[in-house]
């Protein structure tokens, strides 16, 4: 690698300067002004640094991915013991080998914890992680041959045979650099598909899958990443205080304390969490008289924050910002009459199916929930380039059939073919990635996130770079991310929503949310677009406009649409072919004219034989 053409960006220069001052300043200050920058104060700053790294590791799991962990202390402890073993036993490896071992063991253990967590949510995950913390604390950490139990291990700060960081200030320099590394990694997680996938899982797992996000994989990734950083922080802390035993990383002292840092700092708010960590590390030491009150204050803050702002400090800041923005921008107007044009998806019309066969073939699909048959042997075909309607009274099984097609529900029997290939065994995200886009009855978006973030999430399948590339934010990842942002901006512009780009989706009107949702489904240029009651909540004039947009999706964008709709006049006007579902089975099918005059359809809708509905 030559340095020719090496032109660091302003941000890289800033990082280099920060890193250099982290390395130079503590040792320099300790020697220049030993009276002020005492050994004890260097130790306290080191503790604060370790708190920041540890809190960020929990924030990644709990704040970003929404997976609660009340047992993170056990992961820190694992890291500290792993590092202790490598650096004190056997070959007595140097410090960095210990830190690497800590990362490795933290990652492995977190992976094992993450496996059952795939099936557990919320409170149940919290219970499982408490059980895990106690198992580690009471058993593994007390295992004499490995950890020497309460006698503990000494953790040396040896960089090489003759170089030991005996001074706290020197070790502080190293700790600061490690914490900076964790911070930068965190920044890269948030600005790439990793962070978006975590956020999407936190917000709504079904929506995440419809965006093509493999929730199993990303949940495990969150656990492994968080676990490796927790292991690293634990080892960093262990070498700082120089000694760990079975009680160092107890449930009371660490697992719960980290939850306080993350919640009080604000779930998912990197800066808030770091500030909280430094605050709780330094205040009791700066003011000797406060000794013992720090935890009381922390616990009180936690209770107070939860009682008044269940979203933590981040929510408080966010509310203030939103109020200011609301003053600047008038409230979003409701789209009553005309809907803007939908953005054109990238790429030409989808490849025609071989032999001109249907793009989607559903054969004999049956879905039951505990004995209740919701869909009973339904077969239908969706030819490419058409709009196909799926209608039926409430409870007829339309949405269940949609869920079976998109993979959210496992059918008991039957087969689903997409572009000639069976997708019945595929997961929902894999089907989304193949080109099946869908919307949900109750708006399938991450509603707490901004419009732009939703457009970026929706392009998950287009973000083709590895996790390593994401963590290091390589030029490849940067280039792809820039493309995704461009495409998101284009989509937002063509909707005319530039001023709402940073607005959380939940603050938009229902009609605006629906448009963003359909546009999100279109942005990955799916061959098949499945819309679940898109017109619900629209004014009549807007429904007409929506019908126009759907025809454009078919005629100008060349997409196929499968449409669940209650607005019969609209269905009859836009659909090429209609299937009617009643009590889980197909009641009728045909062109709009045929269906509209079908006596059984009329009975199903009106409860009795009546005059044919005019088309």
């Amino acid at each position, binding site marked *: 690698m030559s340095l020719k053409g090496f032109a660091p960006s302003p941000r890289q220069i800033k990082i280099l300067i920060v890193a250099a001052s982290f390395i130079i300043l503590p040792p320099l200050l300790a020697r220049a002004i030993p009276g002020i920058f005492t050994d004890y104060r260097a130790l306290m700053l080191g503790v604060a640094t370790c708190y920041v790294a540890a809190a960020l590791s929990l924030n990644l799991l709990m704040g970003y991915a929404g997976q*609660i962990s*009340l047992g993170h202390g056990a992961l820190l402890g694992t890291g500290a013991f792993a590092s202790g073993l490598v650096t004190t036993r056997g070959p007595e490896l140097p410090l960095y080998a210990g830190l690497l071992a800590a990362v490795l063991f933290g990652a492995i253990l977190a992976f094992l914890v993450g496996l*059952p967590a795939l*099936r*557990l949510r*919320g*409170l*149940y995950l*919290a*219970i*499982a992680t*408490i*059980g*895990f913390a*106690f*198992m580690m*604390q*009471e*058993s*593994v950490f*007390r*295992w*004499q*041959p490995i950890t020497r*139990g309460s006698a503990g291990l000494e953790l040396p700060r040896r960089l090489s045979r003759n170089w030991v960081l005996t001074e706290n200030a020197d070790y502080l320099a190293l700790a600061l650099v490690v914490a900076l590394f964790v911070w930068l990694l965190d920044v890269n997680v948030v600005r790439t598909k990793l962070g978006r996938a975590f956020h999407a899982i936190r917000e709504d797992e079904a929506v995440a899958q419809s965006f093509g996000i493999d929730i199993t994989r990303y949940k495990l990734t969150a656990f492994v990443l968080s676990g490796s950083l927790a292991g690293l922080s634990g080892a960093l802390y262990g070498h700082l205080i120089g000694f760990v035993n079975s009680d160092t990383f*107890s*449930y*009371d002292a660490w697992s*719960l*304390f980290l*939850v*306080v840092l993350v*919640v009080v700092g604000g779930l998912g708010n990197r800066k808030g969490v770091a500030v909280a960590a430094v605050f709780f590390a330094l205040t009791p030491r700066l003011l000797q008289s406060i000794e*013992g*009150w720090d*935890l*009381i204050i*922390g*616990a*009180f803050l*936690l*209770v107070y924050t*939860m*009682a*008044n702002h*269940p979203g933590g400090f981040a929510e408080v800041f966010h509310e203030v910002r939103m109020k200011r923005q609301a003053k600047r921008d008038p409230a979003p107007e409701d789209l009553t009459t005309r809907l803007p044009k939908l953005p054109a998806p990238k790429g030409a019309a989808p490849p025609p199916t071989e032999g001109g066969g249907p793009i989607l073939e559903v054969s004999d699909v049956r879905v039951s*929930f*505990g004995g209740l048959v919701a869909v009973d042997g339904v077969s239908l075909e969706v030819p490419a380039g058409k709009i196909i309607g799926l209608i039926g009274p409430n409870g007829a099984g339309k949405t269940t059939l949609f869920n079976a097609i998109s993979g959210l529900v496992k059918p008991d029997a039957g087969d689903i073919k997409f572009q000639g290939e069976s997708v019945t065994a595929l997961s929902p995200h894999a089907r989304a990635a193949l080109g099946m886009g869908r919307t949900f009855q109750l708006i399938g978006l991450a509603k707490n996130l901004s419009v732009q973030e939703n457009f970026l999430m929706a392009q998950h399948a287009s973000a083709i770079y590895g996790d390593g590339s994401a963590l290091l934010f390589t030029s490849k990842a940067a280039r792809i991310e820039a493309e995704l942002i461009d495409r998101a901006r284009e989509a937002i512009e063509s909707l005319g929503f530039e001023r709402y780009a940073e607005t959380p989706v939940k603050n938009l009107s229902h009609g605006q949310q629906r448009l963003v949702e359909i546009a999100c489904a279109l942005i990955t240029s799916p061959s098949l677009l499945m819309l679940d009651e898109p017109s619900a909540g629209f004014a009549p004039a807007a429904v007409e406009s929506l019908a126009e947009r759907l025809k454009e999706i078919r005629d100008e964008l060349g997409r196929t649409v499968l449409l669940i709709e209650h607005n019969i006049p609209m269905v009859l006007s836009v659909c090429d072919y209609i299937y009617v579902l009643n009590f889980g089975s197909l009641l009728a099918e045909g062109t709009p004219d045929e269906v509209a005059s079908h006596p059984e359809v009329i009975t199903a809708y009106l409860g009795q034989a009546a005059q044919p509905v005019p088309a």
Partner: protein
Amino acid sequence: MGRVIVSGLANGGIYGLIALGLVLVYRGSRVLNFGLGEIGTFTLFVAWAFNEQQSWPWWAGASMALVAAVAIGLIFEGLVVRRMAGATRLAVAVSTVGLFLLLFSIELKVWGLSPRVLRAPIQGLGPEVFGFNISYTYMLAFAAVLGLGIALTVFLTRTDFGLGVLAASQDPVAVRLVGVRVATVSAFTWGASAFVSGLGAILIEPAIGAFSPGFMSLLFVRGLAAALLGGLSSLSGAFIGGVGIGLIESIIGRVFIGNQFPGIQSIAVFFVIILVLLFRPQGILGKSPA
């Protein structure tokens, strides 16, 4: 073996008591109270202050301590839980983690880390069964668990208010319609569960020896596992779950006797938790979800 069963039953009774406290609050407000165990520890410190420092008679100190426990439950319910009526249940659960830390840190500040010993209500070894002395405290604990369990069950199923408590989490509107105030129900469950936790702590402390801040954490995890085993919302399930965990623990302890690996019981409890969560989240007594 008889000895194993007797000690399992005795410990299990205490776990059942803690599980009962968890289930009460869970039924009333669909929240797990992670601070419940520490309310028990706090009760111990108050009882210790009265009994050992002020030399009050045992029952008087214990009563004052239980009053303090109930007060903590009621205050937390009134100041925090009620305000969070609209918040997610997980947020409320996190606030109870705050309750744990608040009590824990106050104990640290006021009494410090050094271990303390609380007198047993009745001194003496107690009768020998299967070569195992069942102390009078154990017997008292078991009697209290059974008595409390029966009394609570009768109260909850035979009175209007009790039925209101049972229905509160399912249908708050219906509860209001039969003339029971939802707020009163919530306060009752928090107060009662704090009482139960305090009583459990006072009864089990003599069997364990010394206590310090965080003393009840380990028992709390057992109680949590017991409540889970019973299905989180069943009162009788809590008790049976407690006895189940107690028995599993003492049998495992017996099987692995002399084993070098420490804390085998904690591993067993963890696996019970994981297996129940994964395969029978409705508990051993719960009906399978439709």
